[in-house]
């Protein structure tokens, strides 16, 4: 029984013109697309321009030998998944073993045996196809809570079980809460409640992802996001403040217009709290359910600051720790108060984002609490 050999792109790296030509013609005849490089350095240049499905790599080469090229490939997160098959002479067996230990997929001995050549290429292509399928599946999962540009980088850092090892990072945590939603939900049919929530979360998730944040969780009508994790960035506080402003000034009014059009009340309000500092983040869970999470005092503080938005009359509040990290303090930021956050002994200074609707919001909130 013969198995049809799926075609792929193969990079042949060999300084020997005879071998290079022989492999190129043979592989082309089998339906593959062949790229060639005459030494290790040229191979790395090709690999950074266009990633093939398999690399056939000679061991003995001038300029940069095959072992060094293999080390570079396996040390580069963007390249290490590409299967590498070493080309060797009978006497290179010691080097072959070293290459297998370094992560080479297999080896081919010169002169080439056509059956072995086909088998090695087929196995390499099968592995590549499986990798690509798995990567696409995981990419779909990650793309739901990570900004698109971050997905590839996170994928390259995840281990074989696609877990992100725990890291301690300085980040900004954002809590957003939809006000008066519980009473709305109690008097509204379930399918409409879910429709409203999905619309709301759709808008707010985009505000997070468009500003480079990571969605941690939806809890009831609340949303938790983190900026600066899992991939660290210097401007996480600015990004969080920008996202909060976008939520409040652009996305909430748009959501309320939609809600009014559909007869879901006169409009919802929201509270947003932010705090910055060290936290631990990583993927947690079981094989069957994996979630990205953030843990630490910064997360708790952000949650408690969000709960203060109601009593302090500001829809957006941020802690002094976030303001300290904002590179360009926005002109609409106003000092609100020094408060003692539950669970912390030292008082925390709190700042609010002034808004054209602040007075109305505050007066409405106060009216509701009296």
């Amino acid at each position, binding site marked *: 029984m013969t198995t049809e050999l799926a075609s792929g792109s193969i990079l042949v790296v060999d300084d020997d013109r005879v071998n290079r030509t022989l492999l190129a013609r*043979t592989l082309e005849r089998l339906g593959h697309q062949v790229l060639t490089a005459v030494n290790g350095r040229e191979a790395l240049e090709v690999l950074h321009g266009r990633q093939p499905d398999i690399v056939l790599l000679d061991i003995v080469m001038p300029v940069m030998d095959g072992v060094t090229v293999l080390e570079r490939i396996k040390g580069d997160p963007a390249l290490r998944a590409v299967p590498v098959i070493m080309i060797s002479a009978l006497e290179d067996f010691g080097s072959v073993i070293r290459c297998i230990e370094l992560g080479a997929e297999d080896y081919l001995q010169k002169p080439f045996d056509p059956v072995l050549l086909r088998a090695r290429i087929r196995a390499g292509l099968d592995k590549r196809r499986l990798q690509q399928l798995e990567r696409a599946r995981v990419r779909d999962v990650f793309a739901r809570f990570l900004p698109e540009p971050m997905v590839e980088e996170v994928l390259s850092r995840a281990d074989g079980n696609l877990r992100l090892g725990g890291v301690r990072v300085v980040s900004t945590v954002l809590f957003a809460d939809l006000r008066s939603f519980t009473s709305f939900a109690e008097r509204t049919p379930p399918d409409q409640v879910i429709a409203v929530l999905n619309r709301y979360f759709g808008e707010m998730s985009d505000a997070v992802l468009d500003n480079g944040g990571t969605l941690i969780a939806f809890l009831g009508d609340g949303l938790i996001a983190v900026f600066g994790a899992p991939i660290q960035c210097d401007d996480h506080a600015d990004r969080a403040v920008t996202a909060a402003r976008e939520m409040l000034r652009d996305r909430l009014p748009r959501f309320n217009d939609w809600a009014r059009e559909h007869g879901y009340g006169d409009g919802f309000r929201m509270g947003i709290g932010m705090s910055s500092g060290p936290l631990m983040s990583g993927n947690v869970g079981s094989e069957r359910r994996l979630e990205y999470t953030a843990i630490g005092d910064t997360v708790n503080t952000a949650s408690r600051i969000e709960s203060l938005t109601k009593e302090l009359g500001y829809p957006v509040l941020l802690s002094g720790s976030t303001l300290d990290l904002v590179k360009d303090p926005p002109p609409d930021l106003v000092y609100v108060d020094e408060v003692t956050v539950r669970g912390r002994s030292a008082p925390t200074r709190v700042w609010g984002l002034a808004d054209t609707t602040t007075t109305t919001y505050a007066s409405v909130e106060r009216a509701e609490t009296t």
Partner: protein
Amino acid sequence: MSGTAGRLDDEVDSLDPGAVRALYELLGRDQEALAELVDAFVDEAPIRLGEIREGAEHRDAPLAGRAAHTLKSNGLTFGAVGFASLCRRLEIAAGEDGLAGSHDLIEQLERQWPHVREQLTTLRDRAVT
């Protein structure tokens, strides 16, 4: 040792028909591809032979070793077994003692090459059956 081996290695090296046939099959019985491969060997071999001599004269064993390694591989691909065997001995010598005392071997290899080239040219010019 080199004297005995020299007499054997000076014998005209014939291309192994089995190896040539295997190569032809590997290339899908493509005459053009076979001719291209012969041309590559015929073009490159003098350069590699030059590198072996240069490596020996200038004590650049890695250069000579790599050139011998390549010629050995090419020789085996076309079934030039005796030629490949000489290359292998030179490759080992380059790794072990930096080609000291390998002048005889190099000369034998240089004498072998025209015979190999002639057979390669014949192979290129006639139909392989």
